[in-house]
């Protein structure tokens, strides 16, 4: 059985003051191998918590995760992670960063060299491979992070707002790159974003989460990711369904934010 199965996941953080936060409540999800799921939701609805549990950095209070038939416990190279920023190793060159995973497995240059150079080519950093991390722009750094993750050949790639710190233009190029890499490698991807457009463009499936307690609010299946492969993303945005979906989801999240505001006002 291949794919990622999340069953009845709950996560409760106990606070030092005796209270607690229900970050996730009864979240279930079935992701087939090679699917790209984007996750949207207001701030604090438990998106990062969900991803950290799947990555194995956090142990859930309840529920379980199965990947390709075996239970997920702790972090592992089969589940790669791309962070928003700050996860590259500044004391290594671009190429050393990208080859980190293979090197940790004890592979030699002859074994990983070609694959790493190929990846650097795909993300367009062949000319920068000996550069230091601080010499790169934000967009280039995220391409290094993507390449580093792919070099390890994980089954699942988890991305927490990977393009969140980039400017609009770089972001659009990176979105095309993500789609391209997804199609070429056939990886299962969970991508968290706070941009409704990005979630619609990239997500073959889209999950809208609601806060307090963090739970799944609504799920969509979308055609745009497939349309976007090999096509200008601006063309995809002109699709009539795109605007409808965007308005619908924006309204949904807007309502949730309103409710949160109302509730915290009532708390005071």
């Amino acid at each position, binding site marked *: 059985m291949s794919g990622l199965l999340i069953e009845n996941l709950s996560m409760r953080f106990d606070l030092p003051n005796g209270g607690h936060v229900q970050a996730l409540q009864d979240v279930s999800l079935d992701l087939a191998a090679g699917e790209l799921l984007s996750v949207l939701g207001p701030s604090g609805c438990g998106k990062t918590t969900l991803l950290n549990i799947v990555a194995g950095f956090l142990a859930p209070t309840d529920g379980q995760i199965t990947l390709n038939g075996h239970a997920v416990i702790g972090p*592992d190279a089969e589940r*790669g*992670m791309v962070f928003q920023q700050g996860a590259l190793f500044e004391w290594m060159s671009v190429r050393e960063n990208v080859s*980190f995973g293979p090197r940790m497995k004890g592979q030699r240059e002859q074994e990983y060299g070609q694959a790493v150079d190929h990846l650097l080519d795909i993300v367009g950093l062949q000319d920068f491979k000996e550069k230091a991390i601080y010499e790169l722009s934000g967009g280039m750094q995220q391409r290094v992070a993507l390449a580093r993750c792919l070099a390890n050949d994980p089954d699942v790639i988890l991305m927490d707002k990977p393009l969140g710190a980039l400017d609009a233009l770089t972001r659009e190029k990176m979105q095309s790159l993500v789609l391209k890499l997804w199609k070429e490698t056939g990886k299962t991807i969970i991508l968290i974003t706070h941009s409704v457009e990005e979630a619609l463009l990239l997500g073959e499936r889209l999950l809208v989460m609601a806060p307090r307690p963090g739970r799944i609010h609504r799920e969509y299946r979308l055609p745009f990711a497939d349309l976007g492969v090999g096509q200008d993303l601006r063309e995809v945005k002109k699709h009539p369904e795109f605007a409808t979906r965007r308005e619908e989801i924006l309204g949904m999240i807007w309502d949730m934010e309103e409710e949160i505001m109302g509730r915290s006002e009532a708390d005071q």
Partner: protein
Amino acid sequence: MEYTASADDGSTDDATITVLVHRLGADDTLPEIDPGEGWAKNDAFAIGAWRSGLMRVDRNDEKGRDVGHQVIAVNGTPIAPGGQVQTEFGRVGMSPKGTLNFEPTKGWQMEPIWLPSPEAVMARLKDIASEGYRGSTLWQHLGFSLFRVVVGFALGALVGIPLGYAMGLSGWFRGWFDPIVEFMRPVPPLALIPLVIIWAGIGEAGKIILLFLAALWIMAIAARAGVSGVNITKVHAAYSLGASKFQIMRYVIVPNSLPEIFTGARVAMGVCWGRWSPPNWWRRKRAQA
């Protein structure tokens, strides 16, 4: 200045005192003076700069102490035993027995014993560099100091860095050692001198222990800060790239903490250098003892 003296017979007379204030060790020949009129004769004294001197003005007077010679005023200001008069050139005091003493105004110049002049320092430096000091050459002295600093610092780093890493990585270690380190850190190493002398004596070991203690806490805190300064996302990233705990230590935590450790080393080196004068001073004390 002038003084007025009285005698048992009730007579009073005035006389002039001339004081030559000379450089220490310089020529102190008294100027020729005219003894003057009356039974109280004029006097001349020589007093070194930054010193004070007695002025037995009655010595040359016709009516001496045997007939009740007593100074009753200086420059017209009355003076009594134990009292003093401020003059333009210095302070005139009177001892309980009635003898005058004079302390010339020191002015703004500092006495060489507190701060020797640059020439004197250079001369002494040349002297010590060529002749040595207390039987060893300057280079031997510097070599010993350097040796102590290097050994003390190296030992401090050798113990401090692993301790700091352990504190940064393990809550158990942090719980036990944090209070100790935080307590010891602000204690000036000089304050430990008496303790170290009691434990280790005044030999080379004691001095090295002192420098070791100076470096130890700084290095431990630097290493701990280096470890806790590691961005947790880097550690997470390394884990999900398949790195083991040991590999994370070797390839993420250690390189990420090196800048902090080098900063700590620089501070510790500075502190150790600053400490080498007390051990030297202490050695001089030993030589005197």
